């Protein structure tokens, strides 16, 4: 029987095209990009071999420090935010709301997930606008007696706006994801715990939380892989400003390659980013294996 499922011709027909496209669009460019890290230049002026100059520069470039700092700060806060708020919402959906309200709120909170990021970023630019006229947030602040804030004009407040916007935009997805995980917990376990006298906090602490750890972990991995690659929402909302204070690695790479026409250094930044993504995922995977044997 093995022979039927081992039919080489069928395997080639089924897998061949996908593998070919994957190789040409992903694998080859990755190695090609790796090759770029050892050169300096661009198509107009030509390329010349640069040895490990790009890597040396990576360690001395203050902009890399800033971009890396922003990326890590953003990824950490965002991942914690997405998972924590998402989890809170999912608990709310499943244990507090009734069926119809739960479905309605789920639908509503999920909606921004599917809206194009640029549209949301433009909307948030206007919501947090401070000049020439105040946007709705500043109007609110002024009306309660606080002064208007130049939200997108200062590094720390711009960061806050980015976090608020991206949470608003993405938390619905994590809520639904975790909601699915919570549905998975068998009813009888909860019921028997309840009969044993577990209520509210202790029910949550001793039964629900441990049982939802695997899905929380999955959500965390999913989240951090997205947040480390943050690009479009920041590009559209702040353009990396003010100054370079909200420029993530992804955007710095893009600028280096296309605005400063340095393909070699741009590829080196991309490589750094790729390595970060792999390391973080591996790290979380390994700790997961140990703790939960997922």
């Amino acid at each position: 029987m093995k022979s039927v499922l081992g039919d080489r011709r069928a395997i080639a027909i089924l897998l061949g095209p996908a593998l070919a496209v994957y190789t040409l669009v992903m694998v080859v460019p990755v190695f090609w990009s790796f090759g770029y890290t050892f050169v300096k230049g661009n198509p107009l002026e030509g390329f010349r071999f640069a040895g490990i100059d790009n890597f040396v520069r990576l360690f001395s470039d203050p902009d890399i420090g800033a971009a890396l700092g922003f990326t890590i700060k953003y990824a950490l806060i965002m991942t914690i935010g997405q998972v924590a708020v998402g989890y809170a919402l999912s608990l709310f959906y499943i244990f507090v709301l009734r069926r119809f309200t739960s479905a309605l709120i789920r639908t509503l909170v999920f909606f921004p997930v599917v809206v194009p990021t640029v549209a949301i970023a433009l909307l948030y630019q206007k919501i947090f606008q401070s000049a020439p006229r105040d946007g709705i947030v500043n109007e609110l602040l002024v009306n309660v007696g606080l002064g208007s804030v130049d939200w997108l004009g200062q590094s720390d407040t711009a960061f806050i706006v980015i976090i608020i916007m991206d949470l608003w935009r993405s938390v619905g997805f994590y809520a639904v994801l975790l909601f699915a995980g919570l549905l998975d917990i068998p009813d009888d376990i909860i019921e028997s715990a309840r009969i044993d006298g577990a209520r509210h906090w202790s029910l949550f602490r001793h039964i629900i939380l441990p049982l939802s750890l695997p899905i929380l972990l999955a959500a965390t991995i999913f989240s951090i892989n997205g947040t480390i690659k943050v690009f479009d929402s920041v590009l559209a909302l702040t353009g990396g400003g003010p100054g370079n204070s909200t420029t993530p690695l992804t955007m710095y790479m893009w600028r280096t390659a296309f605005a400063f026409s340095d393909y070699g250094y741009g590829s080196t930044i991309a490589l750094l980013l790729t390595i970060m993504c792999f390391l973080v995922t591996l790290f979380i995977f390994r700790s997961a294996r140990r703790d939960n044997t997922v």
Partner: protein
Amino acid sequence: MTTARQRRLGRRSLALAATATSALLLAACAAGPTEPPAEGTDPEKLEYLVNVENGNIPPVLEDMSTGVCSAENEDLPLEINSIPQADLDGQIQLLVGQDALPAMFAAGGTPAEGAKLWNAGKLVDFDEALDELGVLDQIEPAAISTIKQLYGGAFSFLPFQYNIEGIFYNKALFAEYGIEEPQTWDELLAASATFKENGIIPLTASGEQGWPITRLLSGYIFRSLGPDALQKVADGEAKLTDEGYVEAAQAIADLGASGYLNDNIASLDYDGAQNEFLNGNAAMFYMGTWALTAVNNPEANKIGVENVGFMPFPGVEGGAGDISQYPSNVGLPSTFGSATFGPKVQAWTKCITENFGEMSLVDQNTISGFKVSDEVWAEQPQLTQDVHERIASSTQSVLWFEALFNAKAGQDSSKNVPLLVTGQMSPEEFMQLLQTDLDAG
């Protein structure tokens, strides 16, 4: 017959070059210092690649294609494509690498990039080409000299715009508070203090764009250190971290600290800043003369054309510069590729050179470096005529702050200057940041 064969040969060698390009990939991307061909090969279409933000050239060209240049358009139809300005230099580079430059394109957002194109032999030498077409006298000599100053010493771009920069001011507000046109920086500060006391924004500028503020910085530098101050930096004879330059940055930072600029300036966009002035909320507005389009438009200008004055950036006492030296530029200029500069493209070039100046002035209120007859000038609004006279009588011009910077320094400058005027970055830090970028090359 000979021409046809030459052209065929030319095409074949182009095809050969293209094959080599795809075969060698990386190596062939390097554009060697080839001589510009004596005559290019006409493309199928007059493809014009321009920055999306340019609202000035495309409509005039489209008018021409159905009007004065309809014959040329029949032979070689015009096709306009646009991409964002931020991507333009990168895109042009890639096209150059593939020998795929469109017949006509905008380039040189960073002048150094424009000069590279000329050095690589990719651009038409207009000194020669327009002379052959018999229309070289249709270009203002001042515009040619500005182009040569910016783009590697050659007349390699066409002056679809020709701008000088200075301060637009609200005459009615000046009169109301008895203020004369400030001749020096100190007078400007005194005037600003008066306006601020009376609840009027002294000077409006867009911090979201950044460059309108760095223009104030270069204005100060040219007045205090002289018209060659930034050339010295480019040549490595001086550093931005030198005392005089940091002092200039300090002066601009103080302007912000004293509250003489808009509140929340870092978020104020271009139109927002312009409207503060055109709605009478702000007394002064530093800008290039391309702003005349809006100033002369009664729908946008609520304070009235007659109430808008134009003055040069004030002098700095004891400085080496002179108030008569206006910053001048040709906008983001457009040019023609040498490889595609065939007879049909040349016919278009001739038609554009003969007609663009007047059409752009009359329809768009934009001053170009193409000559316009005196009768047409006389019909223009007073302020436009006034600016034209200043252009005609100016003998020495200066550039803008980032003109001689590399791309990274240019971007860091306009992105960080809002931090300078809002006190989030010190003058030393700001100049150090830019000098580091310049040193990195």
